């Protein structure tokens, strides 16, 4: 990560004109914006150099395919078929003939150019409003060539932000548990991948059971549960160095870890004598604090983005329900009162919502409610699904889903899925193995 060099040069921002296109992301988008992603043009010399270096025939096309795929999976855009494009990429980047793009019903157009400058990859791109016939944005990036996928993600984020008014979530990664083998003897490994499923990498070997990995705010550290030496404990992992350490010195199982929003503390549960309470440990001075003190099971804690509150689930009422308290453990208040049981609350990065898992009449739901428990909205129903994690802009949830086995107990699978906060755009995220317990990173280019 440290080696990552990205120079972002803003050529110029045109004055915002109120007539330019906008995409509303607060509603389920049934009419995604038609957008033309013209392949980034590339000169023959650069093309050859990058082909040798990256083993990609046309890196300009590859980068624009990443952009196209990101915009499409967001559900907000409808990238048009390249076969209908009338203008050559290099000419379109200089001056689009808007009539031509209008003809194929494109409302927005992305053009650009890739060059090889001093061993580096230089990418410039422009976003055009076809109807208004105006340039909306023009940016250029210079980076090490191996970062080409990230350039595609950053362009996607810039386009998303310019057109929706909110930050994107494409230049991000997902950490999750990769699973294989029979249901009774699952082998689980920590794995990390780009948000679009590329660059999948296993971080552990599968010798011990690992569960529930979560990123710190800078996405360089991960906290998770490992059964190393059959002692289930919360661990801390530095993704770059691979260094691991146990968090705290607890005489029993610690689990359900998450970072505080400033990244300085880990909040988790500690189980002892049949009771589970919530604790924090300061990573600098190692001071451990007990936050809840109740004979019930208190677990799955998650901080509000300002760090002032904690939501968690507890069975103190008899069944699992969601509670909110101040970060010092005072003022505990139950917020879930609907039918069924509620678990895995996670505070939205925007602060206004809590996502959760709900079990009611044998069905599992992923839903959201306001932080006082009002406005409950169920987004998806299934045989089994749980553990939502928010995209950094708070617009998408990723979670995992397990299938029902047949009479012989066969046919089990666990997959990662995502859904928009609107309840639309439900998608399975392809992973090399089965997957569970996903956690979304922050925006890496911030």
């Amino acid at each position, binding site marked *: 990560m440290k080696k990552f060099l990205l120079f972002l040069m803003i050529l110029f921002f045109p004055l915002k004109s109120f007539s330019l296109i906008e995409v509303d992301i607060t509603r389920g988008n049934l009419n995604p914006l038609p957008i033309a992603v013209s392949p980034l043009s590339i000169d023959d010399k650069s093309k050859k150099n990058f082909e040798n270096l990256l083993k990609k025939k046309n890196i300009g096309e590859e980068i624009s395919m990443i952009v196209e795929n990101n915009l499409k999976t967001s559900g907000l855009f409808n990238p048009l078929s390249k076969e209908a494009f009338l203008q050559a990429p290099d000419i379109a980047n200089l001056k689009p003939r808007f009539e031509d793009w209008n003809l194929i019903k494109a409302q927005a157009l992305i053009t650009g150019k890739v060059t090889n400058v001093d061993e580096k990859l230089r990418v410039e791109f422009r976003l055009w409003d076809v109807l208004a016939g105006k340039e909306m944005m023009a940016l250029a990036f210079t980076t090490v060539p191996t970062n080409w996928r990230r350039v595609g993600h950053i362009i996607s984020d810039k386009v998303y932000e310019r057109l929706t008014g909110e930050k994107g979530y494409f230049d991000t990664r997902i950490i999750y548990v990769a699973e294989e083998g029979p249901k009774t003897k699952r082998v689980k490994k920590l794995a990390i991948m780009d948000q679009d499923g590329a660059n999948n990498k296993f971080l552990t070997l599968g010798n011990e059971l690992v569960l529930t990995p979560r990123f710190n705010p800078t996405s360089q550290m991960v906290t998770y549960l490992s059964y190393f030496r059959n002692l*289930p404990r919360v661990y801390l992992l530095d993704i770059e160095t691979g260094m691991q350490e146990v968090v705290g010195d607890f005489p029993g199982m610690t689990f359900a870890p998450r970072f505080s929003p400033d990244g300085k503390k880990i909040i988790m549960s500690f*189980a002892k004598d049949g009771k589970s309470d919530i604790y924090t440990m300061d990573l600098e001075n190692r001071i451990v604090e007990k936050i809840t003190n109740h004979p019930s099971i208190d677990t799955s804690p998650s901080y509000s983005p300002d760090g002032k509150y904690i939501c968690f689930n507890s069975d103190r009422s008899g069944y699992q329900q969601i509670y909110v308290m101040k970060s010092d453990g005072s003022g505990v208040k139950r917020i879930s009162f609907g039918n069924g049981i509620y678990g895995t609350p996670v505070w939205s990065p925007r602060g206004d919502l809590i996502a959760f898992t709900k079990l009611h009449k044998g069905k599992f739901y992923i839903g959201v409610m306001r932080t006082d428990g009002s406005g409950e909205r169920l987004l998806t129903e299934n045989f089994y699904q749980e553990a939502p994690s928010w995209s950094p802009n708070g617009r998408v949830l990723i979670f995992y889903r397990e299938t029902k086995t047949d009479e012989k107990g066969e046919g089990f699978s666990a997959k990662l899925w995502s859904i928009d906060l609107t309840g639309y755009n439900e998608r399975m995220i392809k992973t090399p193995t089965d997957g569970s317990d996903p956690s979304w990173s922050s925006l890496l280019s911030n």
Partner: protein
Amino acid sequence: MKISRIRNIDQGAIMKLNKILKNLLLVVLACLALSACATKKVSVGQMQGDVYTGTDTVEYLASGVPDRVFFATNESVLTTASRETLRKQAAWLRKNSDVTIVLEGHADERGTREYNLALGERRANAAKDYLMTYGISSDRISVLSYGKERPVDSGSNPLAWSKNRRSVTVKAN
């Protein structure tokens, strides 16, 4: 006009047919209900309420000493049968005073992962507390929760889940 008349005739015929079908359906339903009762009787031997009472998955620490106890959904209360099993284990442990044990607590797949880890720990502790009241020192007992991570039965049905809600006593030395 013609079409509508044909429809009327057809509907009359269909209604008659419906009556016959309904009667048939009742007979079929009655048969099904009877056969359902018959299969239920078989499963009574496997479950009481939703607690597993069968022996399919049970292993033995010694002759006549079952290694595991079962729980109701979301519960960690020991049933009469569980207490009897644990008394046998306690007697065996008293006779074999050098043996140390791990109590492995488990949950079924119908709960969130983190809560199930805590629930498994609570179940194993229920067994531990009972063994201690029968004179087994806590020094000889450790507790390990697997939550829903290690089911014995991979089925997605109530019987499979009942087998998976368990605390298993495992010899540690």
